[in-house]
Every structure is written in structure tokens, then in C-alpha cells.
């Protein structure tokens, strides 16, 4: 790693102030950022650790929505998001137990790795990303691989998930990294079904609108019969071609619908 200072503010306001410095960078749980720093692929002057900010932690339910502090770890969400079981299950399947004890939902959404799980949950649920400055609808937030609507120095302080009638996330793991080779989040709301796909596209997480239309009309795996995606624009690497990923999207979507019940 290059050398840098580290700060541990205890409030969002202090963190935002600290991030105003040139080349300062926010540190969530660090489970992606620290390996990146080890490879010397980033050169911040200062890291602003968000892990000491208690106002960014915690899970609260209000009516049909669940709000999760951006600093909540995957483990905390797995244990505490029982009101939204598909979300809790997704969190409990990210990485491994030690990673889940450090990695945070805010960090994951800010990074927007094309193979991460949380983007599928946020987009699939139509969540609202809450930052220190504003609220951003998930449909506007994800802007391609590792790209989001966040401005420089903006912090994801919370995420609000509307709780659907039914939902499930099914992931087919890339065997080495155990990230999603393809992950599909299906959520059925009173006004329709949302289907979000991670791991597959070169554009990052996306909604499979054809499947959404079919499932909104008939929420069953059979409703997906005949629907398929093209392998064009899908990620191709040593773990699978674009065509394979496109095929898996259809398979995982069916399985997610079946799992949602």
C-alpha cells in the first residue's frame, strides 16, 4: 500500500468534512477497498473510516418499508432484516462470515461491483439510496459497472427498501471468488414485479423488463417459458461466456420465482 492517513469520525457531518480534502476516500468495511489498496491500485491521501459512525448503523421498520443504515454490516443485515427475509438471506450469502462482519451495505452500493449482490436487491426492490445530501431512487442510482449517481465525497448513509409481497434472490456463484456469476433478485409488489440481475452484464446490474412484464401478469416460473436474453453485452471471462451467463439469468430467474413461492 501507499502511505495515507486514516481518520475515524463519529458523525456523518464530520465524515463529510473530512472527505472534502483532496484525494480523501471513504472507507466502509474495507473488504473491497483494502485488497485494492494492497495492489496499489488506489492512492488516497487519507481514508475516512465510516465504521465509527453510530448514526449510520441500525435497521428500522416503518410500515411497509425497511431502512438500513449505510454502515450496517452484511452480518447485521442478515441477522436484523427479518422483516424482509429475501434481503436478510441475500446479506447472509455475501462473501464469508468474516467478510460479512466488516463489509457494509453502504460500501457495497457505493462501489457497485458488477458481480455484487446488494445492487440486485436495491434495484430489484426499487429501494431509495439515502445520502448525506439527498435521496436517490435505485433506478437512477446505478449507472454502469463501478459507476453510480454519487458525487465526490457523498456518503450512502441509509437505504430504504419497500417490503414486497414476495421476493427471493438466487445466486449462481463464480466458483473462485464466490461473487455472483449470475444473481437474480425477484420481488413481487402489489403494482407489479421487479427483476434485477447482477453478475451478468457489462453494464452492471440491470432490470430484466421482459421478465418483469411476464411475471407481473402471472407470477410463476412457467410464465418465463420462452423468455431469453442475448449473450451480447454479457460478461465473458474464464468462468463463462456471455451466452452462458445469459442462459443462467433465465434459469436463476425461474428458480428465484419458485423460491419466492
Amino acid at each position: 500500500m501507499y502511505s495515507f492517513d486514516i481518520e475515524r469520525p463519529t458523525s456523518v457531518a464530520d465524515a463529510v468534512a473530512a472527505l472534502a480534502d483532496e484525494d480523501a476516500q471513504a472507507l466502509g468495511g474495507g473488504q473491497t477497498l483494502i485488497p485494492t489498496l494492497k495492489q496499489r491500485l488506489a492512492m488516497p491521501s487519507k481514508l475516512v473510516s465510516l465504521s465509527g459512525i453510530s448514526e449510520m448503523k441500525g435497521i428500522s421498520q416503518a410500515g411497509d418499508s425497511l431502512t438500513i443504515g449505510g454502515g450496517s454490516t452484511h452480518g447485521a443485515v442478515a441477522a436484523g432484516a427479518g422483516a424482509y427475509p429475501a434481503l436478510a438471506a441475500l446479506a447472509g450469502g455475501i462473501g464469508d462470515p468474516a467478510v460479512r462482519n466488516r463489509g457494509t451495505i453502504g460500501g457495497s452500493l457505493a462501489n457497485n461491483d458488477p458481480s455484487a449482490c446488494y445492487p440486485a436487491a436495491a434495484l430489484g426492490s426499487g429501494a431509495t439510496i439515502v445520502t448525506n445530501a439527498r435521496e436517490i431512487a435505485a433506478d437512477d442510482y446505478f449507472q454502469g459497472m463501478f459507476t453510480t449517481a454519487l458525487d465526490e465525497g457523498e456518503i450512502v448513509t441509509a437505504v430504504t427498501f419497500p417490503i414486497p409481497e414476495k421476493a427471493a434472490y438466487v445466486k449462481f456463484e463464480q466458483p473462485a471468488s464466490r461473487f455472483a456469476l449470475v444473481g437474480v433478485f425477484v420481488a413481487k409488489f402489489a403494482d407489479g414485479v421487479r427483476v434485477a440481475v447482477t453478475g451478468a452484464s457489462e453494464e452492471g446490474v440491470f432490470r430484466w423488463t421482459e421478465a418483469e412484464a411476464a411475471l407481473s401478469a402471472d407470477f410463476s416460473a412457467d410464465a418465463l417459458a420462452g423468455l431469453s436474453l442475448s449473450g451480447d453485452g454479457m460478461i465473458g471471462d474464464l468462468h463463462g461466456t456471455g451466452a452462458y451467463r445469459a442462459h443462467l439469468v433465465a434459469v436463476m430467474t425461474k428458480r428465484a420465482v419458485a423460491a419466492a413461492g
Partner: protein
Amino acid sequence: MTKVTMTVNGKSVSGDVAGNRLLVEFLREDLRMTGTHVGCDTSQCGACVVHVNGEAVKSCTMFAAEADGADVATIEGQAAADGTLNTIQQAFQDYHGLQCGFCTPGMVMSAAALLKDNPKPTEAEVRDYLEGNICRCTGYHNIVRAIMAASGQDVPAVAAE
């Protein structure tokens, strides 16, 4: 440099660390507690697992500065003061759950975290929990057996056949 103070295996320790000092480096190089190992640089192998405030974390993927004020437990603090192995350590010896020993500190610390939350895990739960701990020697078979046995469940003795 930042001054950090933490409790390691019940003892208060402190030191001056650079911002980029990892917790595992602080343990191994500053405190000369070399029981915690580093087996990869992508946060996957788990040889470096320690407990911070009672939770398993990868000490190679956490800065020492972030552990300021924390309660840290490492492999060196697992046995009794007289050297008697704890239940998990003893089960690893009894069931031959280690060969070269390099992944072992992380395995034992992960197993301890598992059994704290889930005192009687199924075999599938044990295998799932070990997703972040890689062993190249044992094929995991005897590690899983050791953890099941340490949880008080009936596991056939080694080499009974």
C-alpha cells in the same frame, strides 16, 4: 502515525501505527505475535482470522487504527494459562484437523465464532461457515469432524475403520 490502544487476549497493548498498518501487521510485526498468518492478499484464505469485539474478522483486511479501543482475541489466547488446549483446539488434535498448521489459527478462530453463534451446527452449516477459510492439506474432512466433535456431537473416532 496514530496511537492505538487495544486489548489483545485480555492484555492492554498500544503502539504507534501508520494509517496503512493492517491489524495483522500490528499483531505479527509490532507485537511479535506470529500465530496469526497471512496466506493471501485478496481476503479469501482466512489464515488471518481473529476476533474483534467477539466477531470473526480477517485481520489482513482491517486497519490497526480501526481496532483502536477494541477487544481482540487471537490464537495465542485460546489455550488455558497452563497450556491446556481449549475444546476446539483439542478436537483439532484428536481428529487430525491439521497437517502443516498454517491455516489452523484461522480455522480455530472461525470455528470458535461459529460455535458461539450456533452451538450445534449441522455438517452443512459447518462447511458453509468455512467458506472463507482455505486449507490445502486436509481436504477439510477432519476439520469438519473436529468442529462437529467440539460442539459435542457424535463423530466417529479417527481411523476407526
